[in-house]
């Protein structure tokens, strides 16, 4: 089982968390002014990153709060977790997958 670090509660078992999709996607201010293509981009288009991916998680069976995480999609290693009011930590995309510690 993975250990995920909740920014509020600390180290917790994976089963307490739910996945919330790609992070840092801002809802358009005026959806009615978008054309179909732009609206579809917002609704459906995601990065499908191989490597470090910024994504939302929720400590659903703990403090209940959403937060963001940087996870390597090739190893499932959580590189960092941070509150939604904190900036995304700047971490270089590794050329090769980094094995978990």
């Amino acid at each position, binding site marked *: *089982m993975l250990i995920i670090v909740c920014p*509020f*509660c*600390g180290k*917790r*078992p994976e*089963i*307490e968390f739910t996945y919330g999709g790609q992070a840092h996607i801002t809802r358009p201010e005026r959806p009615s002014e978008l054309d179909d293509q732009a609206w579809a981009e917002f609704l459906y288009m995601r990065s499908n990153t191989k490597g470090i991916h910024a994504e939302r998680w929720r400590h659903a*069976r*703990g*403090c*209940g*709060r959403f937060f963001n995480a940087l996870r390597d999609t090739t190893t499932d290693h959580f590189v960092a977790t941070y509150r939604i009011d904190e900036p995304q930590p700047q971490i270089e995309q590794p050329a090769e997958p980094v094995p978990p510690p």
Partner: protein
Amino acid sequence: MPEQAAPLDDAAPPWPPLLAPATRFILHGNAAVRAAATAAWGVPFAEEACRARLLGSRATLWMGPDEYLLLDRAPAEAAGDTASGLERAMAGLDHALVDVSHRQVAVEINGAHAGHILNGGCPLDLDLKEFPVGMCTRTLFAKADIVLWRTAADAFHVEMWRSFGDYVRALLAEVARDC
């Protein structure tokens, strides 16, 4: 041929008894709300994550950054009257106070094996260094949400939703048999 498993009720210890009915509220609010609520509830609120404060029969348990469980294990008045007092104290401040007295039931798990028994369904590290006295959190016991609060080195207060009460207590008894 493997031996057939013994029937599940073979020498199973009794279920942990339900604790007496308690008054419970969930409070959402910022520091100003909590300061006002402290005046009416009589117990301060821990700012540190996952910590409980206890005074007499009343306690406040950190559930989330702006969310607390208010627990009175021996209420002297009706929950509605207590809620009215809290609402008066917090008037004019943005908050949410919900009476969940009847939503949850509770048991106490104590003794030298208390942590081991809870680990039969709860994956948290319950070593005293990792989960000290006064620590509390929402977590899981098998498939059920629980609130786990360490009240002493060898005692835990466990809150669960009422409809999961039989499930959690039967499983606790089942684990206790193996400890």
